[in-house]
């Protein structure tokens, strides 16, 4: 894999709005994001930040009162924003971009056996019939870690545990042989031990089929586990985007700082945890300046007046905050962030020195010679596996 791969999917200045009882809700504000083949991208944000609306745009699943105001989504030589009807979407939805939803109990049909539900996808997307389709169902079930597939295929969703149901949902998604798999909070409804297994399964599928995955989550622990690249969303815009190492070890946006510092994992016992005061802005009204400014105790004056543009930190890392502007006063991130930065110092330095992408982290990078980078590559390789060979 070359370092500068062509993006698989490219979103440019996307603005998405909903009309609700005569009012207009500006759900996505100037979103630009590239998704590269074989990577796993995580979109992080709290509820209402627009992360679900964003991925639904990629599949045309938003409610009918929503519309794209401007911008484009380039994918496979097409502009997805121009697709209107279900038949327009037929070639994309499910077959090229598939989705795993949060709650496996609501995304499965309780009245049909799981075998039937997987077979439906196999029939539609792989064109198999009869005994062949059955066989395909069994092999998929086995692949996602469900033993005795022939017996289990005859069972109904209520006979499965939460983790098993999520495996079935993944099986259905995989039966479509998609290019991109979107996982919308795939593990929030599950226990920690099961969560780890499901994340492992998704990663295994990614390796095997050279999938591109997009995770949506609010759990930064999960993000650290799965993501090559991270996009942080707040109030309908992407406030920071970078490789996983850059966002965790060298975050630049105050919102990312706040998110990381409020994690109990990083808190000191007996002391109050850092908490973000206030609530996100109401997107029915026009947001003036930096959307996070009212909740940011160290906001600059300009934050209330003018919306910051995306500033590039490195070739892969950029953030929407005035703090990066050379004229801005120097504001130090909170202690926790500095401690994190200390830990990831080498990684950050390397990324800055190369000025290049780590987004190929899951694929073997060309040996650049430096011993340090070789060590890092090895580390990545062992955990994430080698996508390119899948």
């Amino acid at each position, binding site marked *: 894999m070359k370092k500068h791969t062509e993006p698989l999917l490219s979103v440019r200045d996307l603005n998405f709005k909903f009309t609700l009882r005569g009012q207009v809700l500006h759900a996505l504000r100037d979103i630009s994001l590239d998704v590269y083949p074989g990577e796993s991208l995580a979109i992080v944000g709290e509820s209402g930040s627009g992360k679900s609306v964003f991925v639904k745009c990629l599949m045309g699943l938003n409610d009918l009162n929503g519309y794209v105001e401007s911008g484009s989504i380039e994918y496979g030589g097409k502009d997805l924003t121009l697709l209107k009807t279900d038949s327009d979407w037929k070639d994309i939805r499910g077959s090229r971009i598939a989705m795993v939803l949060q709650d496996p109990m609501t995304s499965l049909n309780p009245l049909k056996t799981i075998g039937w539900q997987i077979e439906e996808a196999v029939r539609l997307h792989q064109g198999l019939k009869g005994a062949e389709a059955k066989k395909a169902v069994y092999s998929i079930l086995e692949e996602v870690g469900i033993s005795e597939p022939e017996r289990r295929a005859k069972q109904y969703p209520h006979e499965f545990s939460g983790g098993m149901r999520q495996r079935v949902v993944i099986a259905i998604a995989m039966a479509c042989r998609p290019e991109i798999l979107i996982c919308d909070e795939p593990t929030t409804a599950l226990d*920690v031990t099961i969560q780890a297994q499901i994340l492992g399964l998704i990663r295994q599928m990614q390796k095997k089929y050279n999938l591109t995955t997009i995770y949506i989550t609010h*759990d930064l*622990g999960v993000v650290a586990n799965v993501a090559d690249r991270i996009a942080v969303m707040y109030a309908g815009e992407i406030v920071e985007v970078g490789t996983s190492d850059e966002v965790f070890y060298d975050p630049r946006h105050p919102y990312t700082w706040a998110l990381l510092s409020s994690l109990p994992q990083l808190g000191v016992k007996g002391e109050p945890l850092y908490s973000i005061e206030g609530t996100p802005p109401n997107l029915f009204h026009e947001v003036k300046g930096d959307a996070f400014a009212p909740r940011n105790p160290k906001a600059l004056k300009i934050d209330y007046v003018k919306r910051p543009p995306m500033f590039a930190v490195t070739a892969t890392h950029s953030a929407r905050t005035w703090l990066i502007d050379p004229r801005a006063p120097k504001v130090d991130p909170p202690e926790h962030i500095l401690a994190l930065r200390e830990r990831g110092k080498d990684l950050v330095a390397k990324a800055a020195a190369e000025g290049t992408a780590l987004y190929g982290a899951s694929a073997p990078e060309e040996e650049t010679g430096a011993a340090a980078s070789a060590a890092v590559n090895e580390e990545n390789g062992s955990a994430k596996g080698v996508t390119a060979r899948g």
Partner: protein
Amino acid sequence: MAEKAAETRKKMLEVDHISVHFGRKRHPFVAVDDVSFDIYQGETFGLVGESGSGKTTIGRAIIRANTLASGEIRLDGKRISGRLSQAEDRQVTRDVQMIFQDPMDSLNERAKVGYIVAEGLYAPGRHVSEEERRRLVDKALLDVGLLPEFSSRFPHEFSGGQRQRIGIARALVLSPKFIVADEPISALDVSIRAQVLNLLSALQKERGLTYLFIAHDLSVVRFICDRIAVIHKGHIVELAESEQLFAHPLHPYTRALLSAIPQPDPIVERNKKLLIYDPSCHDYSVDKPVWEEIEEGHFILANQKELAEYRKMIN
């Protein structure tokens, strides 16, 4: 020395060999099987386990929502399980309150916040004047960081974090001694979680409350709890001071749970080794497991052979 300190600490709640059964008498489903622990005055006691492990059942048994099949629960030395006189029952309701998991579901959509918070005061046998009631509600709302004016609004007008504060105010209005918090933050957004956690610990400091904190998220439990009990399939398998438990997890189930916590640190995550707990690793056919204090304040469920191994691991 330390043992003496533990003895001088007052036991607030004693859970003494309780079992909870569901279903038919003849073929009961044993949700909680012979569980014992003590909670000391002013501490936060964490109960951790996966769904179906019986952690919520224990919490509900303490607030008298589930009946016990055997065993006894004592608050301040007085029995609060089983049949109680009306006066005792009311006292227990006043002393023990609960905070629920999902603030979207646990508040009455059709009642105003003022009524939701005051409902405990309306219970029969309480003679609280309307004026006094309003004063108590206003105070409870202020204590959790809400405004008294909110009492004339409906729950749907509030965000998740504010709703959970209303739930906390409802528990506080009766000035309880002991609060069962059943996953109070798992339904909240990351940025709101910290606010609610801080509120809970501030209230504890102010009022000397004792908490039973039920959760599945070990990272949160470590942050807020003094001692942690790990429960698996109705049995408590390990109990220790939080830091001790994180430093020397002994039981394989605890170790599996700890290994599964996602850490917000990519380097750690990349080098992480996931442990999977297989209950068949225990051979309890002959050598029955016992509940043993393996080191100061560190209890574990194991048989003699395993205990010998665990002792080696500590030293």
